[in-house]
């Protein structure tokens, strides 16, 4: 019984944390207070449920309890201000109790996390904490920041939402497009593509892949008609599909071009293809759709046995002209080199600003690859040494040290 009750609390926390917090904070407009109220509600559940039994609707119980905690705090606040009691809140609370379900407000929460007034470095951590309930320590580890600094960053961001009265809303179509791009970038940052660094993809955060998949799936489900939401989810599914092929049985790194397509997860590829097809019906350029299309070209090798370099060049050219991120520009150089144009590849690399590439590992991997194809072995070795020095993952270091640092 006690064990059941504890399990029920844990299950509710895992499944419903983000929905509960979104619902509470959209109404209170105070993320910190809502988080505190929700954790008090969970603490109460751990005390009450083992004795009184698990309620029929655990989420509704948690919500009512959290709202009571919140309104208590609010009442104190209002009495100090000499305001009237909160009839409105009491009404809403009764309504929430009667309603069979409570509305899913997580989209509003995602949008407020990516608000232009929130510093970009805080957006992804804020999403991870509020939608998924991750603690600051875990987030700090993934982002390679000190836990204290990450905690402060999160507290500052929440205070800003409250003090500036940032509004929890789903925007009109125009503002929506800009903000959605920020929401999706923040989710992509959570997913990270560190494991794909050798192919020149944006080197990102490790260890939060699952959370990134969850957020991308959620956003695509909440915005089924937004091509870029589907594009990002497709991109992430393609990457996930290749996960089992990334390492051999000894944990050694295997680059994309040498992965065994039989190890790619077919169901995920099929789901990704479906999402990408649906997204592309809009006919509008999108960064994530294009990156997903690049992944789609790579996985075609599983069917056709060849990689269509010409198609990759076309897609990277498109990215370079419309969304020239550092990762895309570096990958483009490597793809040109693979397509028999290493001199163009080197020109592209030389054109990148030195201060942006000095510590960007994929750049040095690509540079070594391009220089080797040009027959400049000594320069290639020097670039490869820098790439190894910039590599954090020992498996990837070992792979590069073997001199196999091809970007294929």
């Amino acid at each position, binding site marked *: 019984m006690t064990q059941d009750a504890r399990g029920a609390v844990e299950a509710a926390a895992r499944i419903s944390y983000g929905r509960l917090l979104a619902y509470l904070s959209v109404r209170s407009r105070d993320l910190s207070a809502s988080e505190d109220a929700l954790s008090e509600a969970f603490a109460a559940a751990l005390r009450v449920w083992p004795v009184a039994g698990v309620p029929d609707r655990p989420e509704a119980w948690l919500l009512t309890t959290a709202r009571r905690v919140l309104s208590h705090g609010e009442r104190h606040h209002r009495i100090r201000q000499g305001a009237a009691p909160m009839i409105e809140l009491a009404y809403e609370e009764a309504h929430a109790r009667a309603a069979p379900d409570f509305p899913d407000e997580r989209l509003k929460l995602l949008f407020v996390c990516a608000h232009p007034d929130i510093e970009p470095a805080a957006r992804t951590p804020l999403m991870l904490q509020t939608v998924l309930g991750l603690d600051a320590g875990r987030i700090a580890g993934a982002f390679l920041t000190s836990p204290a600094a990450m905690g402060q960053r999160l507290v500052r961001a929440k205070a800003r939402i409250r003090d500036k009265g940032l509004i929890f809303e789903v925007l009109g179509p125009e503002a929506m497009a800009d903000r959605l791009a920020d929401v999706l970038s923040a989710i992509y940052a959570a997913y990270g593509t560190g494991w794909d660094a050798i192919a020149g993809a944006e080197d990102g955060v490790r260890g939060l892949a699952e959370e990134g998949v969850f957020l991308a799936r959620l956003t695509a489900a909440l915005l089924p008609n937004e091509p870029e939401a589907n594009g990002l989810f497709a991109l992430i599914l393609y990457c996930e599909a290749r996960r089992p092929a990334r390492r051999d049985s000894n944990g050694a790194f295997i680059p994309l071009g040498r992965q065994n397509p039989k190890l790619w997860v077919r169901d995920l590829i099929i789901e990704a293809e479906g999402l990408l097809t649906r997204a592309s019906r809009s006919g509008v350029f999108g960064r994530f759709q294009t990156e997903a299309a690049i992944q789609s070209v790579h996985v075609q090798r599983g069917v056709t046995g060849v990689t269509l370099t010409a198609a990759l060049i076309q897609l990277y050219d498109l990215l370079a002209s419309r969304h020239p991120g550092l990762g895309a520009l570096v990958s483009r150089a490597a793809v040109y080199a693979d397509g028999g144009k290493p001199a163009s590849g080197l020109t592209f690399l030389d054109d990148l600003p030195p201060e942006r590439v000095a510590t960007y590992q994929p750049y040095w991997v690509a540079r070594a690859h391009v220089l080797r194809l040009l027959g400049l072995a000594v320069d290639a070795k020097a670039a490869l040494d820098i790439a190894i020095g910039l590599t954090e993952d020992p498996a990837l*270091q070992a792979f590069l040290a073997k001199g196999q640092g091809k970007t294929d």
Partner: protein
Amino acid sequence: MQYMILFTEPQTHFDMRNNPAEAPGYWGAWNAYIGAMAQAGVILNGDGLHGPHTAVTVRVRDGLRQVQDGPYADTKEQLGGYFVIEVADLDAALEWAARSPSAAYGSVEVRPVLPPMSGGAA
């Protein structure tokens, strides 16, 4: 901002330095790392250190000198080297710490460097 990054290593890795089969891989990894830092222009100074068995620790207590062979504390990981780097912020220093070979098998401590005391006598 200046940070000192201190690399600590377990005895297994100090031993690699003199093992003909393992030394090239061990030093190769450090050379690549130091080369990358040099290329990025962040190094102010720094050195590798001989192993902990070469250390001598001195304390003066009640006017008596106490000298002991070995490092100041007997821990599984011992200081193997350090760098002082100039980078934008703590996050950038942590990036360099994470890339070091010993991050994967030992640990790396990052500390902000105190600015020099002004006015001589403090």
